[in-house]
C-alpha cells in the first residue's frame, strides 16, 4: 500500500511556512485532499514568494465597508486601493442574505488589472463557485479559491473589481482578495 507513497522526512519540512504544501494543514502531502491547492502552492512563483523577506499578508475587502448594499440587477465597479507590489493569490465571496436562504441570490465578479487590462477570469465568474459555504465545502483552507499562480500588481497598477448583482433583491455582495504585500 505504501509503495507508491513518497517518504517525506518531517525534519525537512519548514513548519514556519504556513503556505508550505507539505505541512499538511488542510491540503497535505496527500494530493487527494486538495490537489489544486497543493499544485498552486508548489508553483515556482509561490516558492519564490514564500522564500522572500518583508512580506505581509493583506486582505482587500470589496466593497469597503462590506455592509454596502448593491441594488438588484445593478453593476458595481470599484478601484481597489491595493498597495504597490502586491501579489494576489486567493479570493472568496460572500452574499447576505445567504444563498441557502434565497437560492436566487447570486452575483458575478470580475477582476481586471487597471493598467494592462488583463482579467483574472475569462468571463465574469459566478460567486457561488468562489463561495465557501456553498456545496458543503466550507472547510479550512477550502475557505478560499487559490489562483493557479500568484498574480502580481506592480506600480502603477491596481485591481478593478466588477460585481454584478444577479438577484432580484438588494443584497450585500462581498469579494475578498487575499494578497501578499512587499514591504520594502
Amino acid at each position: 500500500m505504501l509503495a507508491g507513497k513518497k517518504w517525506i522526512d518531517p525534519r525537512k519540512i519548514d513548519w514556519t511556512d504556513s503556505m508550505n504544501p507539505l505541512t499538511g494543514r488542510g491540503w497535505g502531502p496527500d494530493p487527494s485532499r486538495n490537489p489544486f491547492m497543493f499544485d498552486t502552492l508548489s508553483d515556482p512563483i509561490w516558492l519564490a514568494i514564500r522564500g522572500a523577506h518583508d512580506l505581509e499578508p493583506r486582505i482587500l475587502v470589496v466593497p469597503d465597508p462590506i455592509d454596502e448594499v448593491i441594488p438588484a440587477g445593478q453593476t458595481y465597479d470599484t478601484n481597489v486601493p491595493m498597495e504597490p507590489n502586491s501579489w494576489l493569490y486567493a479570493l472568496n465571496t460572500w452574499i447576505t442574505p445567504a444563498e441557502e436562504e434565497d437560492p436566487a441570490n447570486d452575483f458575478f465578479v470580475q477582476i481586471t488589472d487597471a493598467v494592462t487590462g488583463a482579467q483574472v477570469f475569462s468571463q465574469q465568474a459566478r460567486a457561488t463557485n468562489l463561495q465557501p459555504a456553498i456545496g458543503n465545502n466550507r472547510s479550512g483552507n477550502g475557505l478560499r479559491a487559490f489562483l493557479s499562480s500568484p498574480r502580481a500588481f506592480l506600480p502603477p497598477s491596481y485591481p478593478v473589481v466588477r460585481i454584478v448583482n444577479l438577484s432580484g433583491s438588494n443584497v450585500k455582495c462581498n469579494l475578498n482578495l487575499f494578497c501578499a504585500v512587499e514591504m520594502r
Partner: protein
Amino acid sequence: MSPTPGTPIASSNEPQYVEEAAIVTFEYTLNANQHVTRVPVPIDRDSDFLWTGLNGSETGSYTLNPTLPSGRYMCTSEIQNANFVSPDANQPTAIGPPPLYRAGSSGPLLDLTDTSGQTNLITLSFSGIRRIRTA
C-alpha cells in the same frame, strides 16, 4: 528552511532559540450588534509567536479585522468570519505570509462586530510556532 521544531539552533555567536508548536486561544462574547475595537490577543512573555493558522467557532455571524505586527490592519475592512475563520481545527486557515508577534506584545488586536443580532460567543485558536530564546 527553519530549524527542526524542538531542536535548539547551534551557533556560538547568535542567540539560540527553540521552536515548538503553539496555539494562542481567544474567547470573547459580543452583545447583539456590538462593535469593539483593538481587543488584544496577548502573546506569552517568554516567546515570540509566528501566526500561521486560524480556526474557531461562534454562536452567530460576525466580522473581524486583526492588526499585523507593524500596527497596520490585515484587512482593508472587516471581513466575514465565514470567509476567514476555519471551522475545522484540523484545517485552520493558513495565514500567509505568517506575521511574527513579539514576546509580551498585544498580539493581533481584533476589531469585532456582531452581525447576528444576538449575543455571540466567539472562540478563536491562533495556531503557529512559538520561538523561545534559550541563550
